């Protein structure tokens, strides 16, 4: 370990470590990727639904259900790397949607906020929740066809099991 006594070597190692940290942040942090395993299905009210689409990074979350054919069986999971108050919009979606914010730990989650029947838009698009003062700290958000939440008895406090 004699090379470590040389200050120039120490500086070189330090710079290398810094570069590695920047590269890791660029690939993981900037893209907002979820590194932990992401659920592929969820159970609510005794019924299990498989996710049709799963968004785990910024690009996928930004695209969402935009320009996709949403049917009665379509469900999309937005997974986030950390808890936060995340807002959504309905730009260029083909139908109205229900949005369900879930605060999950492990395989169990609790619904913290529901926005039902959000309408599609193309010019003036509001963000949901419409008020930034709404506390909807969540790490998962589910989007499904409008009517999904009511038909499955989903409201604030409902337990959701992920699988």
């Amino acid at each position, binding site marked *: 370990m004699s090379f470590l006594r040389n200050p120039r070597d120490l500086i070189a190692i330090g710079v290398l470590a810094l570069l590695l940290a920047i590269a890791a942040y660029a690939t993981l942090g900037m893209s907002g990727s979820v590194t932990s395993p992401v659920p592929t299905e969820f159970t609510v009210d005794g019924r299990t639904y498989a996710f049709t689409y799963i968004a785990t990074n910024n690009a996928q979350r930004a695209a969402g259900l935009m320009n996709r054919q949403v049917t*009665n069986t379509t469900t999309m999971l937005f997974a986030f790397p950390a808890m936060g108050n995340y807002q959504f919009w309905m730009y260029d979606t083909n139908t109205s949607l229900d949005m369900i914010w879930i605060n999950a730990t492990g395989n169990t989650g609790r619904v913290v906020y529901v926005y039902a029947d959000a309408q599609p838009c193309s010019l003036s698009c509001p963000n949901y929740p419409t008020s930034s003062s709404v506390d909807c700290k969540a790490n998962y958000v589910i989007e*499904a*066809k*409008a*009517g999904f939440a009511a038909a499955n008895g989903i409201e604030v406090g409902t337990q959701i099991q992920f699988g």
Partner: protein
Amino acid sequence: MFRITSFVYEIRPTGLLRVSAFPEPMQAAPKPPMSRAQKLRWYSGQLMADAAAYEKNGKTETAISRYLQAADILLLLAKVEESYTAWKYYADTAAQCQQKARTMIALTPRPDASP
């Protein structure tokens, strides 16, 4: 030959002879005009009612057939339904019909089964 109420009569020298009967339908047929979806809804309801009646009378095979037909019709309705609430009703009812048929099949003794 002429028809009085729900029976067909034939005039004979010895008098009137009743030759056939037209049983009254269980439920009145839908009045036109009805949309295709309305007709299918009515038909699936009839099939389920028939199935329940056959099941009650011990005619398991016919009841199973009717339940499966009803499930097929309901799935057809679900396929073209836009509203999530109506779609869920069709899908859930079809699943119930299929489950009912499955249970009845499981309970029906097979002819080749050993006692």
